[in-house]
């Protein structure tokens, strides 16, 4: 069995959304078992990149669950998306170790930096619970990859570091 959907698979939509038969099959593989709802949602998100209302409807119907129950579960867990994933995502780990090492300050810097990019439709900044990379904080997750020890530094140095790990270069408007 393939690995389940995880945060690292965000945005890597393999199949065309709306492949009803693929969804039917994956639910059948779980034995049409209502208790497998979360597993089904994981796999659905892996296929479609997010949980579309139409797909949730299909899940509910096939698992014979009330619509509101399916929606309640899909919206309870932070890793389930109900909207298409952004093109690029930069997530800041806010685990304790990262916090102690300046993750909040880093987040503030990134908020300023990515404000422009978000408008351009490219990047979205997210906060994320502890990734468990506590030995190497602060940690950023950039799309699939992980950037470790992104320590706060004076602007030019930090900018260079952020650029080096794959964030878009600063636009002219934000340059001082």
């Amino acid at each position: 069995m393939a690995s389940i959907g995880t945060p690292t698979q965000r945005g890597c939509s393999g199949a065309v959304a709306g492949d009803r038969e693929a969804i039917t099959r994956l639910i059948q593989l779980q034995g049409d078992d209502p208790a497998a709802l979360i597993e089904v949602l994981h796999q659905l998100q892996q296929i479609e990149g997010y949980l579309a209302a139409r797909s949730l409807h299909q899940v509910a119907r096939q698992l014979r669950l009330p619509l509101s129950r399916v929606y309640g579960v899909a919206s309870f867990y932070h890793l389930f998306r109900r909207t298409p994933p952004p093109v690029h995502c930069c997530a800041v780990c806010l685990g304790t170790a990262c916090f102690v090492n300046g993750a909040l300050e880093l987040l503030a810097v990134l908020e300023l930096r990515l404000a422009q990019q978000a408008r351009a439709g490219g990047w979205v900044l997210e906060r994320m619970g502890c990734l468990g990379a506590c030995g190497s904080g602060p940690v950023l997750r950039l799309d699939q990859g992980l950037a470790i020890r992104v320590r706060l530094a004076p602007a030019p140095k930090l900018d260079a570091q952020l650029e080096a790990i794959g964030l878009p270069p600063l636009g002219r408007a934000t340059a001082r």
Partner: protein
Amino acid sequence: MSKPAPARLRCCDASACRNAGGLALRQALLAARAAAGLQPTSLAIGAVGCLRLCGRGPLVAADGPGGSRLWGGLSPEQAALLVAAAWVDADPPLALASPQASPPASPPTPVPPASAPLASSSDPLASYRLDLSHPFFSLQQPVVLEHCGLIDPDCLDQALAHGAYSQLRRCVRQLTPEAVRQEVRRSGLRGRGGAGYPTGLKWDTVALQPPGPRLVVANGDEGDPGAFMDRTVLESDPHRLLEGLAIAAWAVGAERGYVYVRAEYPLAIARLRRALDQISQRGGFGVAFTGTPWPLRLELRVGAGAYVCGEETALLQSIEGGRGTPRPRPPYPAQRGLGGAPTLINNVETLAAIPPILRQGGDWYAAIGAGNQASADKPASGATTATLGSRGTKVFSLSGAVVHTGVVEVPLGMPLRTVVETMGGGVVGGAPVKAVQTGGPSGGCIPAALLDTALDYEAMASLGSMLGSGGMVVLGPHTAMPELARYFMGFCVEESCGKCLPCRAGTVQLAALLDRFVAGQAEAADLDRLEALCAMVKATSLCGLGQSAPNPVLATLRHFRPEYLAACREEPRWA
């Protein structure tokens, strides 16, 4: 943890080292071996589980006739040197300097430039070399982690060669469930997930329920920020957990079970999946591993990002495919759990301690904590701090502002100072330790003055903290306590399931109150309000998350009250 063997390079393949470039390094090592014309028979290069010093990853250990050596902070450029060093025997170890000796001279991070050692030293790997005799390693007593870092977590045969499933076989073939439970009771093992409930008693409760089906669940929803003990076990030795869970199933009469792992641990999930596949490929737990037709079936359930699912009734809801909202207890899951059946829920580390307990005996395990206490470095105070209730070892994840970050397994009862200062090397840059945060969002803060407190359940609780699941975050002088409390409260606001009022609405108000302290805009009345609301949320919340959400506030208030007072304005806002 040294193990005499033919020349072998063990590459840490746990997620911390992977994140630091471990995979590329291993590829480079394989290429270097090929380039050097060596065969796998003369130099084995393999992935293993966690080598402990996560902050210095990627880590590689070499085993040879002369013993074991360890390097950290490596990059693929060092591959050829490592292959050479592993193949020939090498010099005495050097690099992991003891902080007492020369703290600021060579801070372990950032990683030193690759060119420096080549130019200056006769051993070009000298600056990467880590000292295995350093207390960080030498004071560890691996029980749960005994095979962690030695075996390839993806390889069942290696696990079997190290004795995996031998205790399960012995249990099923030779021991009655009662005999197994008795051994667990004798060990004095308590739940390692934080609550510290006696494991044997829990097993008995499930086993002694009226006849009918029972279930077992391994709780791998390790959500405390700053905690990665269970992840270490799952990524390094998944069969160890499965064996412990299977033994638990035998001991309580269950034939079905679940391993619930948080989705944020993709590597652990992949390895558990593979481990379960390996077992089913060989015919399941029954015939293949015990030689009996025992029909035990274990399944993996993956969370989806909800801290509250670490609470056992919420976890059950989640396994059943629902919202992870806790329900009132009693009835406890041991009485009524999955599908109404008695359900045993144990934390991953707890279950991973079971095979060695059965192998060595409960008395052996029980002697670990107590024995350490009797021969402690500080006998005068140690003798009074009885650890009757805290036996065996505990895995801690050490992180934050500490020099050596990583995973340590030490006997319970060890003074906190030993872990933080002797093993962890104190705060980066030689600054004094301000406090140690233990137990995550439900735990507390131990100020530097109390660092001599023993790491046991009762001593920690008496300080208003808790041993917790084992996350240990060291705080340096620049961390402001109201900010820390606000950080944890923000975490609880995010993670509250929203079912009961005090947790749903109370944490929001507490966070807002703490905001005023963080901003230096608080009034004296806010402090009263803060304490009153903390008391209310703590006493009236439905589950452990809400009940412990005020702990970081109360603990920091208890030990660092002046910081809160300093954040109060002198004049009330509406004078």
